[in-house]
């Protein structure tokens, strides 16, 4: 199981995957936006997205859980 967390305060601009999707290393899970910059959040693991904790438009804090890959 791997947890993907936010590296910075940001707005969730786009949610690319949904719970149940199969992903592999390097796939984009969500795209964050902070300070006028788009920041794709990638998975470093292969697996299934078992939890997706953010919605488009959310403001998330550094360290917040974005997704769980199992």
């Amino acid at each position, binding site marked *: 199981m791997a947890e993907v967390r936010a*590296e*910075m*305060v*940001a*707005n969730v601009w786009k949610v690319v995957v949904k719970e149940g999707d199969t992903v592999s290393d390097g796939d984009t899970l969500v795209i964050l*936006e*902070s*300070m*006028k*910059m788009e*920041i794709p959040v990638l998975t470093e693991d292969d697996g299934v997205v078992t939890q997706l904790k953010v919605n488009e438009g959310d*403001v998330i804090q550094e360290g917040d859980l974005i997704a769980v890959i199992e």
Partner: protein
Amino acid sequence: MLTETLGPVLVANRGEIARRIIRTVKRMGLRAIAVHSEADADLPFVREADEAVLIGPANPAQSYLDAAKVLEAARATGARAIHPGYGFLAENAAFARAVVDAGLVWIGPAPEAIDRMGDKINARNLMEDAGVPVAAGTREPVTDLELARKAALDIGYPVMVKTAGGGGGIGMSVAHDEEALAKAFEQAARAAARFAAAAAEGGEGDALAGPAILLERYIERARHVEVQILGLPDGTVVALGERDCSVQRRHQKVVEESPSPGITQELRERMLAAAVRAGEAVGYLGAGTVECLVDADKQDFVFLEMNTRLQVEHPVTELVTGLDLVELQLRVAAGEQPEVRPEVRGHAFEFRVYAEDPKRFLPGPGTITAWAEPAGEGVRVDSGYEEGNTVTPFYDPLMAKLCVHGETRGQALERAREAIAGFTVEGPKNNLPFCAELLDEAEFASGDYDTGLVGRMRGGRA
């Protein structure tokens, strides 16, 4: 003086530039009015204005980009002129028109000039027709990937792919082959769609219009050199020297200097003359910037784009010319014909202090727990924040501009080194360590660098 008729002046911006404009407005004896979002209520520019109006929530679309709210604030406070700063509504011709229609003075060029230069495709064509050199590129909007592929073959790789609107390096990328072109095109199309959506939200433009994208021949090892111009009421345009903005990450400037160490006097004269021609071709009034790409080896240049507003890096020009560009903007907007005899003295740098990590340059917003600005001979700091403020993720990462002036480039660099070491910022991540690292980089110190410098310092990852 005519400028007395301008006040009160509403500053439709935030952060360091709002603060800097307010300073000159007040020095000229005029009342300064700030507008701000909920997120910015505690920033210095709000306090330093004579009056401040809350215009909406943090989201810029509902505050700084909302033309109706800004105009309502102007009406409510009795403002007679609006200074847009840079970004937000500064290059929005519809807003400029609305300001004029409301009977207010727009401190910027005529809306028609913004229209003609705001679209990068149109601007390129106009400049080419005016005899200003441009890079090989597309004269019509490229609306799909197939057209992009054909255009790239005509132009020859590598090509720069960018959106006709927007700025700040957003949606811009270089493609060295067809595979990279597909990626670059997709990225630009996404950015173009967002610009269109933002414009539609602001009550103008069409969100459903196809993406307007242009391709241009990409010059490897180019310098980015721009000319500051000032259009006067009598129709003449003067050039106030150049700025070298070749230190960039993600196609966005980090450090600027004037004069440019990478051009000969002969090239400088040609560029300044071309910039004057460019300004006169669009009947330009007020402060503007003609951005060019310089091939340092060939000592030749091409037109890149024109910015119809005050530029972030205007302080370097102020430091070497002794002029106050905001004052000149106000006087020209009031119909005065200031006598400007630009004379460049010494050398100046600007270091943009961004809230971002100094290695990967990723955003690092946060609360400022300690903030101490350097001072000293030749040092100027234009900042938007102070201790206790929070740098939020809603706006660009620029916290301050550390500017230095010296009699020579060497002296200015020495002063920069001391000033950077003497600047304390704690809380948000910041790029001061990168600025210090840059000063130790032989390529930068020599002056013989190009827009690839930061990428090389970071092993191609910037």
